[in-house]
């Protein structure tokens, strides 16, 4: 177990190092002035240019530059955006929780709808209801996310006028930015109309969540269904049946846990799809998240912002994936302990 842990820590450190190295190299490939790409500041005079070059050690060897980059990175000094001249660390700290929030809603829906439905339809497979679920899930994960979001907008916002179209909450509510999660912020910011604010934020969250979670839910349904069907054919299930256990007892005691094990690593792989979808949906619903922010950055060719944003999102996804993989390996006794760690 400790050996396993060390192996995964090792993997994590190497991958993080590779990512940081990549983000260090990016400004050299971006078009334009290297100094502006790194610092985000366009020097107005020779003195300023020399000062900046000194700060980023551009005249030193590449190793010193990397060292400076590393120390800046860990000190939270990620430079400024070349368009707005705002501190990137603060900008990302503002935008990232919003994305995380959206992803959590989608994951919540997908887990608590997708997995139970998958179990039910896998246990009762080949009856009409199961066929319906299978058809629905194939249709569901074929939707282009951006189109689905637009269809929802035309239907629920423009035609029926049930739900708001953009943003996280109406501007009427003066919610302070404390944690970045809108519901927690509402409670913390001590408004006199907390109840209305929560209701408003909830109405704003429905459509983006729905657009992302339909695809993820359908994938969850399919994996769970397949997995439970495989487990139910195993010898130990037949043995349990022959000893006279009821269907329910078999499910709770034997098949439930065994079916979950193969699902976990597949779910880990879905994180990157989820992030991509969340980023696309954010731009459509003007959700103030990191995806929206990054795409604005690319429209404005804001290279320092692209570098920092890319690094944060990639680090987040990789850390989550490796952690999930480690958990899977740790709780699964059948896996070969000597096998190499993999993302």
């Amino acid at each position, binding site marked *: 177990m400790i050996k396993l842990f060390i192996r995964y820590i090792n993997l994590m450190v190497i991958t993080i190092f590779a990512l940081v190295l990549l983000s260090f190299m990016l400004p050299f*490939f971006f078009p334009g002035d290297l100094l502006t790409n790194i610092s985000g500041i366009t020097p107005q005079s020779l003195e300023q240019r020399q000062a900046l070059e000194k700060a980023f050690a551009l005249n030193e060897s590449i190793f010193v530059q990397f060292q400076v980059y590393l120390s800046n990175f860990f000190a939270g000094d990620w430079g400024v955006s070349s368009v707005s001249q705002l501190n990137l660390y603060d900008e990302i700290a503002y935008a990232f929780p919003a994305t995380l929030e959206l992803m959590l809603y989608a994951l919540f829906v997908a887990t608590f709808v997708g997995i139970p439905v998958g179990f039910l339809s896998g246990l009762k497979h080949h009856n009409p209801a199961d066929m319906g679920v299978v058809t629905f899930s194939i249709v569901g994960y074929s939707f282009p996310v951006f189109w689905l979001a*637009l269809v929802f907008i035309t239907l629920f916002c423009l035609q029926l006028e049930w739900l708001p179209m953009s943003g996280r909450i109406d501007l009427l509510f003066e919610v302070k930015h404390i944690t970045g999660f809108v519901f927690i912020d509402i409670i913390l910011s001590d408004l006199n109309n907390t109840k209305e604010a929560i209701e408003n934020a909830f109405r704003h969250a429905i459509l983006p969540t729905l657009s992302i979670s339909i695809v993820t839910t359908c994938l969850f349904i399919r994996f769970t269904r397949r997995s439970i069907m495989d487990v139910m054919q195993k010898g130990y299930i037949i043995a349990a049946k022959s000893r006279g256990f009821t269907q329910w007892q078999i499910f709770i005691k034997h098949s439930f846990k065994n079916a979950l094990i193969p699902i976990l690593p597949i779910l880990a792989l879905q994180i990157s799809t989820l992030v991509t979808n969340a980023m696309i949906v954010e731009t459509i619903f003007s959700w103030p998240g990191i995806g929206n922010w990054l795409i604005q950055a690319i429209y404005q060719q804001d290279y320092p912002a692209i570098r920092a944003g890319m690094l944060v999102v990639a680090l987040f996804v990789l850390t989550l994936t490796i952690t999930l993989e480690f958990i899977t390996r740790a709780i699964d006794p059948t896996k070969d302990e000597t096998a190499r760690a993999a993302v």
Partner: protein
Amino acid sequence: MQRFDLYQEEYHASPLENVWIEFKRSHLAVVGLIFIIIFLLITVLVPIVAPYNPDLQNTNALLLPPAWEASGSVSHLLGTDALGRDVFSRLLYGIRVTLGSSLFIVFVAMIIGVGVGALAGLLRGVRSSIVNHLFDSIMSIPTLLIAIIVVAIMGTGLYNSMFAITLALIPQFIHQTRSFVKEELSKDYVLLDKLDGAGSVRIFFTSILPGMFELIVIQATIALSIAILDISALGFLSLGAQNPTIELGQMLSQSLNAAYVAPWLIALPGLVIFMMVLSVNIVGEGLRSALRNRFKH
């Protein structure tokens, strides 16, 4: 499969025929296959099929609704867009670009992925783990992020977005190939090859690759549906195909200005993307269950 042959007229279907027999049993899968064939025909024959030049502007009929609406006209079956261009012709050309580039991407990713995957599977020790780590980490980086980096370095455009998506698809093939090769290497028929003195290259091409065909095809259908979705998503975010290239996602994003007056301009391109992805997924699903069940009968 060798069997005892008592009667001359007894016929044993080859594994591939078995797959087809099993595939035909699912009507839905056959319908999906027909749709894919139609889409492929459109891709190839579009200059003949399309009723209008996709860039031709009919200034007398701007934002004409589809023919089934009261103010529609039969001369423009699916109406016209804000510049008076025929939507039906544009959709057909859009299918050509979206599907054609997706097929190309999948093909390239497949060749590279299988090659590197085989290498990773056959290699041992440090080199193998470097290759594995490198591609495993790329695999978990979201496609959109790779696309953003590629666009930032090389600029927007259809070819750059294709490059980004290829990069994102390759690791899936590598992963599948590597684990398959690793598994097969421990089997007896490979041992037999080794005893005959075959090198690892020969083992891969003559023994392992023929058995891997189906795995690759299934992975390719998955990759194709991902590629179609990603190409159109990048087109939609205007990071991919740019004007005058007609791409379905890009068509959609350009119709957003007229969304209030002409909702069909949003509905139709999205519907076509959805139909393409759905038919690819249905065929992939049918193929998978056919391969699973082909020796049951």
